[in-house]
């Protein structure tokens, strides 16, 4: 069986800089990512963490590549299950008055528990990110029903 690879592309009426900031600055992520924060200095080789609203670490990893407003590659793992590591790539491409944002989540370990969680999560998070950038207010994405 082929290894899982999740690819989600969305087109946003925004700029590469604003899109980058919305992904990398906690004051923005909290407003559309269910109150979560992405914390790092976003330099190649640095650590990055995904925090819940209580500042507990939910996801941790390293910054593999970082070209501001263009490309960000991270490793991604639950801090309680570091062997189940995967990789996330954000690519931001300007197109006239909008950007094309492609998020690829791949390099999952065999039997990874992360695949199911992130296939559930990415469409929600990235839909809310687009709404946030275009209207100033994210969606209540983690609600039930």
């Amino acid at each position, binding site marked *: 069986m082929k290894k899982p690879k999740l*690819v989600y592309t*969305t087109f946003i009426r925004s700029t590469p800089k604003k899109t980058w900031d919305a992904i990398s600055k906690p004051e923005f992520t909290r407003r559309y990512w269910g109150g979560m924060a992405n914390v790092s200095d976003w330099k190649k080789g640095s650590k990055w963490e995904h925090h819940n609203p209580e500042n507990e670490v939910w996801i941790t990893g390293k910054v593999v590549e970082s070209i501001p407003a263009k490309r960000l590659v991270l490793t991604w793992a639950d801090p309680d299950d570091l062997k189940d590591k995967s990789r996330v790539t954000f690519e931001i491409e300007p*197109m*006239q008055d909008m950007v094309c944002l492609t998020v690829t989540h791949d390099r999952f370990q065999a039997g990874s528990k992360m695949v199911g969680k992130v*296939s559930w999560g990415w*469409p929600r998070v990235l839909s809310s990110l687009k709404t946030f950038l275009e209207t100033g207010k994210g969606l209540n994405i983690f609600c039930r*029903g």
Partner: protein
Amino acid sequence: MNNREDILQKTTFSYVTYIRSTPEKLWQALTTPGFNRQFFFGATQESAWKQGAAWRLMIPDGRVADSGEILEIDPPRRLVLKWRNEFMPELRAEGYSRMTLKIEKHGASVKLAILHEMDKPGSKLIEAVSEGWPPILSSLKSLLETGESLEETRRWPEGT
């Protein structure tokens, strides 16, 4: 999200988006020509929107882009179309695909899920619609949330 598939000898594309809107408004935008042309690259759908009715996607210059039939319809929740490309011979030769669209209320938003399937491996039609659905659905979301679709999706691409 786009994954697995080839073990089943079929090609699929699936996409899920959440939109701040209601199922009724989303259904109206999806099935009304005046809304369609703002986010479907200027194209509009023609159908009586009843089970068994013919369905066509019309290019603004009068050509038929795709055609098929309504297999299931349950407004504003579910639509299943038989779908064949009509304007690109290589894609037309693949025959009919199936497109399933589902709408569910999700808190103050709606969840829209599209599944486009062809019962053969390596389908070029599915490859083509995988390029088309993300800008179309992104633009539909912008239209419903901000009143304005994405400009690039308001005209049919030149030379195609």
